[in-house]
């Protein structure tokens, strides 16, 4: 196994890519996918720490993160389908009815 720091750095890079994706993309689906990428980066950190502490708790947390991610993806995609029916577009800039 590579040292813990390597895993942490890799996970930070993936997380940053996810952040950039949320900012730069103009498609709700891709934004949701970038969020998934961020969640996975965090999972990697949890598992790296679980391995170096020799404790199963980290793995259990990852299990819960996956559950939440599944729920989040399902509800998010349902919202996207509902939005698309009303607006015929996936561009987040057009969803501005509540914008002040």
């Amino acid at each position, binding site marked *: 196994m590579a040292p813990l720091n390597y*895993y942490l750095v890799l996970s930070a890079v993936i997380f940053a890519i996810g952040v950039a994706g949320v900012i730069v993309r103009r498609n709700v689906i891709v934004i949701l996918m970038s969020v998934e990428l961020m969640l*996975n980066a965090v999972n990697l950190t949890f598992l790296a720490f679980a391995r170096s502490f020799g404790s199963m708790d980290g793995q259990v947390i990852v299990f819960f993160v996956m559950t939440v991610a599944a729920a989040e993806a399902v509800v998010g995609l349902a919202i*996207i389908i509902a939005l698309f029916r009303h607006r015929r577009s996936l561009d987040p800039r057009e969803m501005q009815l509540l914008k002040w």
Partner: protein
Amino acid sequence: MTLFIILAVLTVVSSLLVIFQRNVVHSAVALVAALFFIAVLFLTLDAPMIGILQVLVYAGAIMVLFLFVIMLLNPAALEPRQIPWWTLGSAAALLLVFLLMPALLNTVAPRQAAPAGPGFGSPELLGQTLFGSFVLPFEIASVLLLVAIIGAVVLAKKES
């Protein structure tokens, strides 16, 4: 070590492709690849159960759902690239990495790569931990999933 570097490069490249591909389906395929490589990284961390669950849940279910929705809505046009946002996004990402880097590099593992005990990451141990000290969160997670199912059906159902 070599394995880690190969996997890390593959993961980062496919994550970058998720952002840089202008076509939604290409982004989704790149994300599937990234998730698959992350699953293999999980295997190198003595978490075989979680690695398989990653493939099963993420690649096998969540991403299929994404592709399903993409094909259902079938958005035709390619997304235009907007330079100001791209600059802002890359700057934010780079800043984040550079701010985090010193802290991450100075992190000292308490027992650097302690030898994993027998059965570490096995389904038995995961199950015992899950139904031992994490029973309450586990039950709450099941309620969360139920809420998500009902919510998704209500949201996506056509108003008659």
